């Protein structure tokens, strides 16, 4: 036989059991022949000395996907391999014309244990170069790694998943982007944030690898100048980024746009929003009490992310309204607060409901304030049905709400109705809209029962409304 041979096998593989006599025959002819057994060093019994590869190091180093795999080496270099049992191939590679006589001509092999889901990254870390460049933070044998994360100030107050090498490698599998690519400079410290740092923080947030493209798009959206992330994270006001996901990605990764869409319980919703917040905290240094000067803050600063319900063919999704083609997955980032609940269980006509919603919308920030805030209206299915049955589409609802939220300046000026807060005196005698054009975004979400909708008030920026805008980005792999 020219060269030397090795077979990679496991007992828990019928094809390996089938070719056990063949391995015995090869061992009898060639003392240098090796069998690497992945699950039982006593297998195959026909071979006196079997290499114990239960740690899978040999399988990793030889990139074994299938067992049995026969490899021929010449001068230590692999020159031929075959997977499974293919009598003709085994005979050609070994040069033994009658090898495996009496066995079937072909039998497919089984998966190598080194190719099981999740094992590749583990082996890469254990026996290879992980390629991870971020600094190692070591901890002691008896340290609780979750507590180490708390002590280092890496958490939002809830436990995080410790970013071990294996977890970070798996997270990086969720994107085609290179780990050392810089996504942007994260305020307030304007620290460069690589894809690898995103992956580390996504691990900590509890993300699955398939969420990575959504997290990356969210960061890119947040870093657009018109999103003003620095001001948002530092503001004394309640606001923080709210992420609204559109397109097929939402279903693919199992996001919630239905029952309790704005609440807890869905991993993708919860962890994508959290990953963005952890990146602001850990990479950018935006921590409460430091750069983050929120007077009260809000629960949305842990995480606030949901998907739009696009199940109604008559409804134009938010992403399409914002200029993206149907079927394109996007994130829209909005500078917003928590949920202001809106109840109307009696209005049945669309104009009646629009006037009613306007009352809720006019209350955001302060009922006497106007033109200083945006808002997202999350229309529940039952409220939407009232508009849809009347043939009102997105554009019509927006138009009607814009009109219905317009008020008499006399009621809004500072001092009116005995309240100091209010608009400049010069607005007396005018009609004053609550929102600048485009200042109200409508999204559909929610469970099937309940004549409730949600208003997500926006950040009071106190500046030209065009300097502070929501941002929509396409989600790319």
């Amino acid at each position: 036989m020219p060269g030397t041979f090795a077979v990679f096998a496991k007992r828990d593989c019928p094809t390996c059991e089938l070719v056990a006599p063949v391995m015995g025959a090869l061992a009898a002819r060639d003392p240098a022949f090796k069998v690497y057994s992945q699950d039982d060093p006593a297998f195959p019994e026909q071979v006196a000395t079997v290499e114990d590869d239960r740690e899978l190091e040999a399988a990793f180093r030889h990139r074994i996907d299938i067992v049995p795999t026969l490899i021929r080496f010449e001068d230590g270099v692999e020159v031929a391999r075959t997977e499974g049992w293919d009598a003709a191939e085994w005979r050609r590679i070994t040069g033994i014309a009658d090898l495996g006589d009496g066995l079937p001509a072909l039998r497919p092999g089984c998966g190598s244990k080194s190719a099981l889901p999740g094992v590749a990254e583990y082996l890469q870390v254990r026996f290879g170069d992980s390629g991870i460049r971020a600094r190692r933070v070591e901890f002691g044998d008896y340290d609780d790694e979750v507590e180490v994360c708390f002590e280092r100030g890496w958490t939002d107050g809830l436990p995080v998943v410790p970013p071990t090498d294996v977890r970070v490698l798996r997270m990086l599998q969720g994107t085609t982007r290179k780990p050392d690519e810089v996504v942007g400079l994260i305020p307030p410290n304007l620290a460069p944030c690589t894809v690898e740092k995103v992956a580390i923080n996504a691990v900590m947030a509890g993300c699955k690898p398939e969420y990575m493209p959504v997290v990356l798009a969210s960061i890119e959206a947040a870093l657009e100048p018109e999103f003003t992330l620095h001001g948002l994270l530092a503001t004394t006001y309640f606001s923080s980024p709210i992420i609204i996901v559109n397109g097929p990605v939402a279903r693919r990764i199992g996001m919630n746009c239905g029952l309790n869409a704005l609440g807890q319980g869905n991993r993708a919703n919860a962890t994508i929003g959290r990953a963005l917040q952890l990146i602001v905290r850990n990479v950018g240094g935006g921590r409460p009490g430091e750069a983050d000067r929120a007077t009260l803050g809000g629960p949305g600063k842990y995480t606030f992310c949901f998907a739009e319900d696009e199940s109604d063919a008559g409804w134009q999704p938010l992403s399409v309204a914002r200029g993206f083609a149907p079927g394109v997955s996007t994130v829209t980032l909005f500078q917003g607060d928590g949920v202001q609940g809106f109840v109307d269980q009696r209005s049945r006509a669309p104009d009646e409901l629009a006037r009613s919603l306007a009352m809720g919308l006019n209350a955001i920030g302060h009922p006497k304030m106007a033109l200083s805030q945006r808002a997202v209206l999350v229309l529940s299915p039952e409220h939407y049905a009232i508009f849809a049955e009347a043939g009102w589409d997105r554009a019509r609802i927006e138009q009607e709400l814009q009109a219905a939220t317009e008020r008499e300046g006399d009621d809004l000026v500072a001092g009116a109705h005995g309240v100091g807060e209010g608009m400049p005196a010069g607005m007396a005698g005018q009609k004053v809209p609550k929102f600048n054009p485009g200042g109200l975004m409508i999204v559909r979400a929610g469970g099937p029962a309940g004549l409730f909708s949600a208003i997500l008030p926006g950040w009071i920026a106190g500046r030209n409304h065009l300097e502070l805008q929501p941002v929509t980005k396409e989600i790319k792999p």
Partner: protein
Amino acid sequence: MKSPQWMRDPTPETAPLKRARLAPPPSLEGRTVGLFDIGKTRTKEFLDRVEFRLRERNIRTYRCGKPTNAKVATPENLQKIAEEVDVVLIGLSD
């Protein structure tokens, strides 16, 4: 013993890994100083003297401690002390 364990740093790595101690307060004026007896011999005499000097400066003190230096302080004990004081001086003696 387990093999070396580590995590990856989620920060931009601009600060040293070794964490800095909390900065001491700029002044003890108006603060309560805990005098923590770790349970070693003659710690009491040492802390009595420190307390005398602090009271000379009209600084409030709060005596606390644990029964023996051979055991760590219980969380309940530390929480009780945290309720009472602004800073703690730990007495080591022999």
